[in-house]
């Protein structure tokens, strides 16, 4: 029993880190442009298809180069989305223009995926499979890799935002765009860079979840929404909040199968989201408005 609980907790932490990365990825865009990217789950799906479908299966490139090329193409795509949608639409009278823009972009990406790679799900044989036993608990290698990579992403993002000139400029743009431009920061360009980084994090999420979900058109449907819940529960717009919220949801929903039928697992995070919106809308770490 104890081993089962440990196993649940560990896989909860692993999937929690995925939710946290999703939270980070859209919080970056939210802070930078003041807009929500409603195509973010499609970007994750697209990243998985480019990596698995094109780079590995079709072109048979070795993993490190395939990862690099996928990052590069997704990063450029992110910057183009910022230049094509966020920058022209963020100063419109209502955010609804940009919201519609990213929603339609999501539809376009979904249809493109169906046209290019077809509707049949597939997987990468032998990619991040196998288990490691620690004591009496069996832990999948995928979960261990997810935890290590997620921590590396969170730490390096923090270092980037604290110590590099571009990272500091990103924080300035998030706080005050007018003052940023008076500092000599090219705000439009900075939003492109931030969205590009966000798209690269989407790609990291995509590659990490391939062993969990296979490559399908609905790959990111549930983690996209749960990542959003993670942001709200942790404290909206605050990067460490996304991590806390993600881990909380991941562990709670995994432990819920001890008390609830497993089919209700996906419901748990949304119930938590609603409870937090009603009781504590500022989340765990957010400041009360």
């Amino acid at each position: 029993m104890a081993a089962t609980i440990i196993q649940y907790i560990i896989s909860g932490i692993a999937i929690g880190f995925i939710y946290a990365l999703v939270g980070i990825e859209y919080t970056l865009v939210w802070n930078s442009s003041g807009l929500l990217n409603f195509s973010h789950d499609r970007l994750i799906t697209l990243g998985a298809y480019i990596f698995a479908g094109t780079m590995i299966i079709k072109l048979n490139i070795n993993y490190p180069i395939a990862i690099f090329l996928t990052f590069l193409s997704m990063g450029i795509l992110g910057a183009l989305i910022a230049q094509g949608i966020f920058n022209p639409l963020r100063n419109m009278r209502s955010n609804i223009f940009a919201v519609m823009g990213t929603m339609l972009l999501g539809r376009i990406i979904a249809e493109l995926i169906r046209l290019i790679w077809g509707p049949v799900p597939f997987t990468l044989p032998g990619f991040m499979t196998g288990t490691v036993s620690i004591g009496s608990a069996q832990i999948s290698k995928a979960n261990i890799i997810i935890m290590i990579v997620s921590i590396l992403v969170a730490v390096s993002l923090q270092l980037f935002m604290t110590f590099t000139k571009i990272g500091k400029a990103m924080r300035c743009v998030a706080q005050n765009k007018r003052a940023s431009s008076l500092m000599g920061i090219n705000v439009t360009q900075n939003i492109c860079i931030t969205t590009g980084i966000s798209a690269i994090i989407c790609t990291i999420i995509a590659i990490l979840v391939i062993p969990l979900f296979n490559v399908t058109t609905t790959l990111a449907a549930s983690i996209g929404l749960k990542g959003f819940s993670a942001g709200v529960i942790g404290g909206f717009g605050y990067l460490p909040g996304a991590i806390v919220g993600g881990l909380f949801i991941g562990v709670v929903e995994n432990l819920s199968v001890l008390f609830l039928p497993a089919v209700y697992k996906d419901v748990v995070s949304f119930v938590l989201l609603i409870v937090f919106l009603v009781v504590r809308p500022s989340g765990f770490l957010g400041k009360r408005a």
Partner: protein
Amino acid sequence: MLKVEHIDAYYDKICALHDISLEIGDDDIISIIGSNGAGKSTLMNAISGIVYGKNGRITFNGKNITNQKPYITTRDGIIQVPEGREIFPKMTVLENLEMGSYSIRRTRQGMNDKIEEMYELFPKLRDRKSQKAGSLSGGEQQMVAIARGLMADPKLLMLDEPSLGLAPVIVDDVFHIIERVNKEKKIPILLVEQNAFMALEVSSRCYVLENGRVVIEGSSEELSKSDRIVKAYLGG
């Protein structure tokens, strides 16, 4: 060095400036006074490129900067310290100062020297350097804003209502610093103020804006004796 010629500017399609012309020389302090909504900030934002200017033109050391993107105007050396300070509240005082130098390359040593120079000008900021700028008092935040502007090695410093919301004693400090910056660092200053008394005292020339037009201009000394100014702006 800065020449504004016959500029009209619009703010949300309302014409906020009509046919404005002004000129700033090499070591001047020029002030612009006027009541709320007279167009003072709009004029400053038109120079910075934040507000769209129509007709006319703005030149800086011979370069046409009309409707140039604000970040490029900053890189040209025209530094605006905006109204309401607009510091970065979630960053420390030190980080705020460093961001002021965003537009120029500095070595680590050069950056430290420049920051040290700011601490000498504003000794209070040294004690506050690791605090979040948002936690400072209004007067201290104004010092951060001015120091952050100076960190860019301005060729022209534009201060928008530096006395806004400050206690009278602190207003004196701020104006004292403005004079020092102008004299010691030889930086020309364009000062926008509602506090006409202070503005006339520190500046050499003054423009009076009413409803988006320059209604009076002249040497500050003469203006501070003019009946019209005394009645309308100095509460005489």
